[in-house]
């Protein structure tokens, strides 16, 4: 059965990307993970895909990717500890059509995507309308993936 991204899943991710910490915790806690997990992670990955695609162009060099990952890892002490730079760089490169991420540790890859997605959205500086537009595109992509 095809289950597209729900408004609940979207609201939870939107709260996180809008910097509404308490609201995100509340909405994320309300998700029924065995039911919502696939949709939420699809939306999260689609948002990451969209954010990387908007931030980096096809001419992006390996040095640009390495520099960005290093910058994000330096933003908090924990980010430097939990983001595996090799995995993070490979994730960005994969969105740009380079290399593979098939064999990376799924948990470490998810952590890297979480930090990179928030950092990319912060850097983009979206207002409310911009964030809605961004997530609208991500939702379309996620629904295609889930179909």
């Amino acid at each position, binding site marked *: 059965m095809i289950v597209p991204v729900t408004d609940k899943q979207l609201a939870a991710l939107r709260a*996180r990307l809008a*910097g509404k*910490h308490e609201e*995100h*915790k509340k909405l*994320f806690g309300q998700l029924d*993970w065995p039911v919502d*997990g*696939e949709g939420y*992670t*699809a939306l999260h*990955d*689609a948002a990451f*895909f969209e954010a990387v695609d908007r931030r980096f162009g096809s001419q992006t060099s390996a040095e640009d990717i390495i520099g*960005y990952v290093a*910058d*994000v890892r*330096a*933003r*908090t002490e*924990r*980010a430097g500890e*939990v983001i595996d730079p090799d995995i993070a760089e490979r994730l960005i490169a*994969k*969105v740009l059509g380079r290399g*593979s*991420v*098939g064999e990376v540790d*799924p*948990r470490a*890859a*998810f*952590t890297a*995507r*979480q*930090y990179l997605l*928030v*950092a990319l959205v*912060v*850097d983009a500086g979206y207002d409310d309308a911009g964030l809605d537009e961004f997530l609208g595109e991500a939702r379309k992509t996620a629904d295609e*993936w889930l179909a």
Partner: protein
Amino acid sequence: MFRDELYKPDTIEDFHDESEQNADDLPRLFERPPTSSHADVPVHHPYLTMPDAEHVSASDLAMTRLVVGIFAFETTRTIRDRVHKLRGG
């Protein structure tokens, strides 16, 4: 495809745990401006200034003399060669 390579249904619970573990740190990314942007800082004078033309150093004079000397020597030699050829030398 991106999603196909990353999504493993048996690890979906790990995603939930990771999300909760990072929940308190991720908001800190909003607290500091990204280093990839920059703010223009106004200054009261230009950083780059033109050299003062009134103060010519000794090395400037020496270099000028050298260049003029080489030019004069080459011009004289060229004229002498041409005259020599015209005279059928």
